[in-house]
Each structure stands twice: as C-alpha cells, then as structure tokens.
C-alpha cells in the first residue's frame, strides 16, 4: 500500500482542484483551481515515469549500451511538457475572458452573473 501512496497524493491534488472549481463562486478562483487540477494530473504522469533512484533521461554518450545508467521513463516527460503549455494557454484565454466579463458585467461572482 505504501508504494502506491505518491499516486494517491497526486490524485488528491487533482481532486482538490475539482473541489475548488465546484465550490468557488468567483470566476478568478475557478480558473486558478483549474490550474491546480491540471498540475495534479501532470504530477500523476511524472509519478508513473519515476524509476527507483533513477537520474534524468539525459545521456552522456550517443549509444545507450556504452553509458548505461538507470534512467526515468522519458515518454511521460514529453507528454507533460505539452500538458503544462496547454494549461497555461487555457489559463490565459480564460483570464482575458474574465477581464471582459468584469468590464461588461461589473462583477465576476457567479451568483450575481446568474441573475441576468
């Protein structure tokens, strides 16, 4: 059970993000909770890629046989570079929408915006 503990913590961070989106009425805090959700998923992928006392997947020579060393799984790292950048792109588009909502409706609270 204990060696699955990191996976559970990463999933806990993702669930805290979902809880934040559900509970917070303020659109700004919903967006930041969305960032927390995506960070949780990225941690989950990187935890899958970890090998016991592995070093970074950057080799010292061009063929793996010569400079053999325990290396973390490089594939999830590549996927997560994409996921981080996608998260920032969504966050910046959401932020510009929030600013326009604030200028048009004078408020960013969910309750007041539902009234219209």
């Amino acid at each position, binding site marked *: 059970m204990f060696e699955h503990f990191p996976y559970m913590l990463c999933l806990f961070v*993702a669930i805290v993000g979902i809880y934040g989106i559900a509970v917070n009425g303020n659109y700004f805090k*919903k967006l930041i909770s969305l960032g927390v959700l995506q960070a949780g*998923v990225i941690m989950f992928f990187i935890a*899958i890629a970890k090998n016991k006392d592995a070093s970074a997947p950057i080799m010292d020579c061009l063929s793996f046989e010569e400079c053999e060393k325990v290396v973390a799984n490089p594939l999830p790292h590549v*996927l997560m570079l*994409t996921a981080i950048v*996608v998260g920032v792109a969504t966050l910046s*588009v959401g932020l510009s929408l929030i600013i*326009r909502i604030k200028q*048009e409706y004078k408020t960013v609270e969910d309750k007041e915006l539902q009234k219209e």
Partner: protein
Amino acid sequence: MIKNLVILEMLLPILIGVSHIVNRRAHLVYLVTCITNVVVCVAAVFICIHVFQSGDMHYYFGGWLPPAGIEFKITKFNSVITCLISVISTATFLHGKNVMFDEIDISKINSFCGVFLICLAGFIGVLLTNDFFNLYVFIEISSLASYSLISISKDKSSIKAAFCYLIIGSIAATFILIGIAYIYSASGTLNIDDFISKLPNIQESNSVRIGYCLILVGILIKSGLFPLHTWLVDSYKSTNSFIVPFLNGTSSKIYIFLAINLTYLIFGIHYSFHHLNISFIFGAMGAMAIIMCSLAALYQSNLRNMLIFSTVSQIGYTFVALGLGSKASAVAAIMFLFGNILAKSSLFMLASNIYLNRRSYDMSKLHNLKSHMPIVVVLFAINGASIAGVPLTIGFSAKISLIIELIKKDMWVMLAIVLCSSLVAILYIWKFMETFLYSKAGSINDSKRKDGFGVYSERELYFPLSIIAFLTGANLICGVFFNRFAEFLNNLIL
C-alpha cells in the same frame, strides 16, 4: 501521392489560417478561406474514394513506426465523417458571407477566419489520429479555437457563455488526460492499434476499466448529452449566428463519433457491454435528453433556442441507439449523426437568413414569412421534416431502424418514449411553420416594414439558399434510396 493528400488536408488550413494574421483586407481573407475550404473538401473526397477502393491508409509522422512515432489511420468510417465535416465547413463559409460581415466587425474578420481554419484542422486531426495523446492535443486545439470563436458576437452574454464552456471543456479534457494516464500505465503504449492488441490480457485490471470510464465521461461532456449540456445551450444561444451551423455540425458530432469509436471499435462490443454495463448509462441519459429537451423545445418562443434544444434531444436519440449494443444499432446511431449534421446545420443557416430579413428570432416578428421568403419556408419545411422523422428523409430512416432495434430488444418503455417524442418534434416544428405561413392580424405587414436598415430581401440571398438547397438535396437523396444508404453505412463499421 494520396498519402501526401492527407497531410495537405491537415496542414493547408493550418498554414493558411496562420497566414491570415498578416493580411488585413477582410474580403481577401474571406475569399482565401473559401478556397481553402473547397480544397480541403476535394482532398477529403479523394481520400474517401481511395480508402473505399484500397482499404485503410496509415501515415507515419517523421517516418517512425507506430509504437515509437505518431500515426494517422484513415479507415472508411473516419474518412466519410471527414468528408461530411469539410462539406459542412465549406457550406457554412460559402453561405455565410452576408451573415459574417453583418455580425462580426471588419477589424476582427482576419483573426476570426484564421482561428476558424485552425479549428477545422483540429477537428480533422481528432477524427484521423490513431494515438491517444495526439487525440488529447487535437481535442485541446479544437476546443481552444471554439472558445474564442464563440466569444465573438454583438451580444455580451457570449463572453460569459464562452467562459463557462472553457471551464467545463477543460475539465472534460483533463478527465480524458487522466483516462489516458490510466490506460498508458496499464498497457504501456499510447498507440490505439497497439492497445487493441494488448487489451485481451489486461481486461481484468481496474485501471483499464477506470481509464475507459474517464475518457467516456470526458467525451460525453463534450458531446453535450443531457445532464451535461448546459454549456452547449448557453454558448449556442448567445454566439454570433455565423458560427452556430459549423459548431453544431462539427463540434458535438465529432465527440459522438469518438464515443462510437471508443465503445464499438477500440474496446469492442463485448468489453463495453458485458464487462461494464454502459448500455444503462447511454439509455438513461439518452431517454432523459429526449424527454426533457423536446418538451423544452416546445415551449421556446425564440426560433434559435428551439433549434438548440431540438439538437440536444437529437443527441439523446443517438445515444439511445448507441446504448443497444449491437452493430445494427450503431448503424442507426450513425444515421442519426448524418441526419442531424445535414438537417440541423441547414436549419441553423436558414435561421440566420431569416434573422437577416426580419432582424429578430422571436416568433412575434416572424409572421407571414412566406410572402417575403418562400424558398426559405420550403427548405425549412423539408429540413424540419427530417428532424421530426417524416418519410423520405434521413431522420425517418434513422428512426425506423432505431424502432426496429428497440422492438428486437423488446424495450417497450424506450419505444414509447421515442414515438411520443417524435410526435412532440412534429409539434414544435409545425408551431414555427404555422407562424411562417399565416400572418397574424396585428403583425407588421410589409408596407410599414422599415426596409433598408440592413434588411436583406430574398433576391440578395439566392446564392446562400442554393448552398442550403444542396445540403437538403443530399439529405433527400440519402432518405429516398434508404436501403442503399443503410447498406453503405453497414460496411463502414466492419
């Protein structure tokens, strides 16, 4: 040579869309985008013919074979859907010149067309890709593009709707990403064909089951099934009426294609219907969608809201057909997909033309339309008939094959729901047809109408109406030659 055509179909919209930032003349941008759409449509048709002649096509990016590199797999099923998507996007663009220049201000048209083309490329990528993570990247491209397309309109509530769509869409995409994480850790590969070959010996593990459910939930949110459809109603209600036919024809329908692909082709009927009982989920949510949204459509006095709610109820029909778990029911679902794409997109185009003439979607202002726009009323009748399921249209053949399947599985309650809801569908289509045909005593008659403040009479709209007539003709042809069409769909899914 044909292999490079796949890349042309994918890359040309991206490069042209990116280059739209540079030139600022709106009419030139509009023209170039129309040409690009037509070229993509022609390329899609060529690929479709080639695939039907010589079987599936594989394209390995960077020359790396599947487990290492990314792969596009063009089968019969997704090449036909790609043709349909590009036909709808070409029709939206060719028909929408007046609507676009009326609704979107000139300075934003070049960025609008650029984002539109990248959105189209994203949808084509979602259809053709054969790699889980590449699927997530293209889902993210197409949804990020549709957030900004939705947020541009004269009505300020489109900004709020775009933000809600962004939050819900990002949660759905993150669910798909967690699902991919579970499937990757269980099977070790990201390639879909590789995963299918490894599925039999990892069927029992929980992580594959949870991964499958998470991806399915993400896809259901994005396809706008009943309990998760609020973002769809809000965003289509408030956005500019140029983009609604395109988004209705492509964005939610592609995720229905993904649902069909996931349950029937990747995981197979045995796994999805006997290992985990998803027929209950599809059936229950589909039935709720049909009941609630057809009744909601009945009480709408606004033409566009009625069409939106009838779209959500049509999605409900598709998922009821999907929930039955046999190949014939999958064919019925695809028929609903075709019918909804063709008929509902042309209905939304007609609504935007009516808006150009009457400057309002409200029923009180749409009286006596037949005297001003007779062709629009005729086309509305035909497409409305296809939605309601009147004979000689795709809607009818889809409903008949669904009813046959329901009788075979003797699900009488569901049969009752489908029958009475198609009755309700006829009612709400007739409600608007009646307002078009008869003029109310107190309604504004044509003498007092203020022509000239941007009101388009029908003479100026002949070309857009011919586009809609083409779509309606395709609808009718497939409806009339019902058995050949059904047999054509049958060999789509082997």
